[in-house]
C-alpha cells in the first residue's frame, strides 16, 4: 500500500468517472460519473494526507469539503432532473437541446 499505488487507483477511478460522465446519455448516469470522479479525488486526498503530509488535519478537511461538494451535486442534480422531467418530460441530454424555457 504505497503512495504511488494509491494514486494510480484513484486515477483509475477518476478515469472511469470521466468516461461515464462523457459517454452516458441519462442525467442520473452522468451524475454517477461525476461522483466517481469525486471519489477518485477524495481517495487521492486521503492518500496524500496519510503518506505525504505527516497527518496534517487539513488533508482530512479537504476530503470533508469534497464530500460536501458531492452532497451538493447530488441534491441539485436530483432537483434539476425532477424539474426538467416535469416541464419537458426529458430524462436524457439529447432531449433538452433547446435551452430556451
Amino acid at each position: 500500500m504505497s503512495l504511488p499505488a494509491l494514486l494510480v487507483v484513484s486515477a483509475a477511478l477518476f478515469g472511469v468517472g470521466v468516461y461515464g460522465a462523457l459517454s452516458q446519455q441519462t442525467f442520473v448516469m452522468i451524475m454517477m460519473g461525476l461522483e466517481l470522479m469525486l471519489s477518485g479525488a477524495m481517495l487521492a486526498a486521503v492518500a496524500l494526507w496519510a503518506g505525504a503530509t505527516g497527518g496534517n488535519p487539513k488533508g482530512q478537511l479537504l476530503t470533508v469539503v469534497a464530500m460536501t461538494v458531492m452532497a451538493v451535486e447530488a441534491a441539485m442534480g436530483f432537483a434539476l432532473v425532477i424539474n426538467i422531467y416535469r416541464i419537458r418530460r426529458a430524462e436524457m441530454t439529447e432531449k433538452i437541446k433547446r435551452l430556451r424555457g
Partner: protein
Amino acid sequence: MSGGTLVDVAFWAFAVAAVVAAWLVFRVDSMVRAAYWLFASFVAVGFIMVLLGARFLGLVLVLMMAGEMTIMAVFMVMFMMNPAGLNPMTMVHQHRTAIIAGVVAFAGLAGVGLVADFPDRPVAASSEPTAELGRELLGDSMLVFETAGVTLLATMIASIALAAKRGRFGDAAAGSVAPELDPEPPPPDPEEQAGHDHHHDAAGGKEAGP
C-alpha cells in the same frame, strides 16, 4: 504508511473491487445494479480510507453513500425507460471520445502519481485522526466548515424550490409548457412551424438507431 502483509492484501482487494465495480456501473443494464455497483465502489474506497487511518472519513463515506445510492436507484427506476435491464440496450453517445478522454485522464493522473516526488512523511501511528479532524473543523478551519454548512443549507432550500410540486403561490409548473405524451416534439414555435415535420422525423430516426 506501512502495514503488514494482511493490510497490503486487503488494500489490493479493495482497490481492484473499487475500480471493477466502478467499471461495472456503466456496463450493467439493470439500473438498480448500476447504482449499487457504484455503492460497492464507494464502500471499497471507504475501506481503503479506513486502512489508511482516516477511519471517520471512510465510515462517513459509507454512511452517506448508502442513502444516496438508494435514492439514486429509486430515481433511475422512476426516470429510465428500461430500469430493470430486461432488454439489453446501450444509452451512450460520443463513445470513442469518452473512452479516449477517460484513458487520457487516467494516464495523466497515474503518471503524476508515479513520477512526482512526494515527500515521504507518513501519518504517525499514535495520532488520533478523528480528534485532530474535529479540532481542525472547529478551530483553525472553522470558516471552511461553516461555509460548507451554509452551502448545504442553500442547497437544501434551492433543491426543494426546484423540485417541489407546489409553491407558496400555487402550482410550481404554472405557466410552463404542458408536457406532451409523446416526449419528442418541442413546443411549437411560430418560426419553427415550417420545419416541424422534418425535425420530428430526424429525432425519431435517431431514437430508433443503436
